């Protein structure tokens, strides 16, 4: 019970700080809008070309905004000298990880929902039929991104050149998630049912389980590092 309360307290604190400061949210929304404008401008209205690249474009937008959001996971602790406070909190540190992960997931999903809506408008796509399947793929893909991203954010929080190191560490590990999400999104946007991309969904679930398990088991060591 105390474990869940501690995790919830961390998530609540992160979301409350973000709701009041809006530092990350404003930057992410602006950045995502900018990306969509650039993509729309460069890709034009050629439907055949669009169909081939849109899944990649969508996930490129998600990943780039995730890199910004996840890289700031422990910024609030560093800025307010609270890092040592987290370290000295008695009890299982994985509760802190889960709280941070929940905060990151909430923030990323809000931005992704907005980007997905704008994506449909900008590229004139009817998401109606694909939406339920897309929601599943986006949820699983975002969980995979956030699970490792939260761990690596803790790992790089106190090193120099963390802005460079963070994506260099994160992106190679995300290859299975990116592959599965882009392929599944491509099929869903072409009108195939979720069952037709079951193998990609299974890969996403497996990656999420592995990433979460490894992160939960190693977060204590990473934080104490």
């Amino acid at each position, binding site marked *: 019970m105390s474990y869940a309360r501690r995790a919830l307290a*961390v998530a609540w604190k992160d979301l409350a*700080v973000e709701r009041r400061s809006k530092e990350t949210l404003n930057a992410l929304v602006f950045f995502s809008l900018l990306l969509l404008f650039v993509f729309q401008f460069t890709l034009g209205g050629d439907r055949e070309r669009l169909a081939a690249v849109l899944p990649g474009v969508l996930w490129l937008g998600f990943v780039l905004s995730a890199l910004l959001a996840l890289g700031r996971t422990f910024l609030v602790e560093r800025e307010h000298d609270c890092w*040592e*406070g987290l370290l000295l909190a008695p009890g299982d540190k994985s509760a802190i990880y889960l709280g941070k992960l929940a905060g990151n997931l909430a923030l990323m999903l809000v931005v992704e929902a907005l980007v997905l809506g704008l994506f449909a408008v900008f590229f004139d796509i009817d998401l109606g039929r694909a939406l339920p399947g897309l929601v599943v793929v986006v949820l699983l893909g975002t969980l995979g991104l956030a699970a490792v991203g939260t761990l690596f954010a803790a790992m790089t929080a106190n090193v120099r050149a963390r802005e460079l190191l963070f994506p260099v560490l994160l992106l190679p590990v995300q290859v299975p998630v990116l592959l599965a999400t882009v392929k599944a999104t491509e099929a869903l946007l072409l009108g195939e049912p979720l069952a037709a991309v079951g193998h990609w969904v299974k890969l996403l679930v497996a990656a999420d389980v592995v990433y979460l398990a490894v992160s939960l088991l190693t977060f204590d060591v990473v934080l104490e590092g």
Partner: protein
Amino acid sequence: MNLEPIVRVVDVRKVFGLVPVLDGVSLEIRAGEAVALLGANGAGKTTLLKILATLLRPTRGTATIAGHDVARAPEAVRALLGVVAHGAWVYDDLTARENLKFWATLGGLAAGADEVTAALAGVGLERAADARVRTFSAGMKRRLSLARVMLARPRVLLLDEPFAGLDQRAKKWLEGRLEALKAAGAALLMVTHSFGRELGVADRLAVLAGGRIALDTARGSLGPDDIQRLYAAHTEDGL
């Protein structure tokens, strides 16, 4: 005062790279006792504090709190500790009340609204309880930091320059709070650069120089000038 030391540091050495910062430090503090740790910049005061706070591991030697080794049983030590560090450990975009509730929950304390309110009243912040910390002065943040610690009722309190940046009124107030914590049985280790009235809280003075405790004496009736002379005699701080 309990005669059994609650904090026991035995022959602790700490080396960073090839540079020894602490080289055989030994120190004991009893429950209800306050020790002021003096020393020049770079003498290793904060390093010793961090070892006791389980944030650093000693290269050699042992440090225990209530019998728990800080390196081998950090979780048991952390449950007994309160730390007032350089930074106040408060989030600017939360209110004072929210900050206390957050740290209490994270520390596994079942602090209710009444306890949080009482802790804020105890540090004179009851009227600012629902204001965002962003609007607080440095002194108010220091008070909030102390409220956070008081809420946990620690048996050992580690303070890194607790009087730094406080005006005279706030210093007097902090002295009172620290005396109250001592009276409640907490052991205090306080790093300070001051020889003035701030040392009034201390029962003993320890001077760290050359990586060791060069002087460990009862404060007794020593005045600021006496302390300054003793300090100069045991350090190379150029006084």
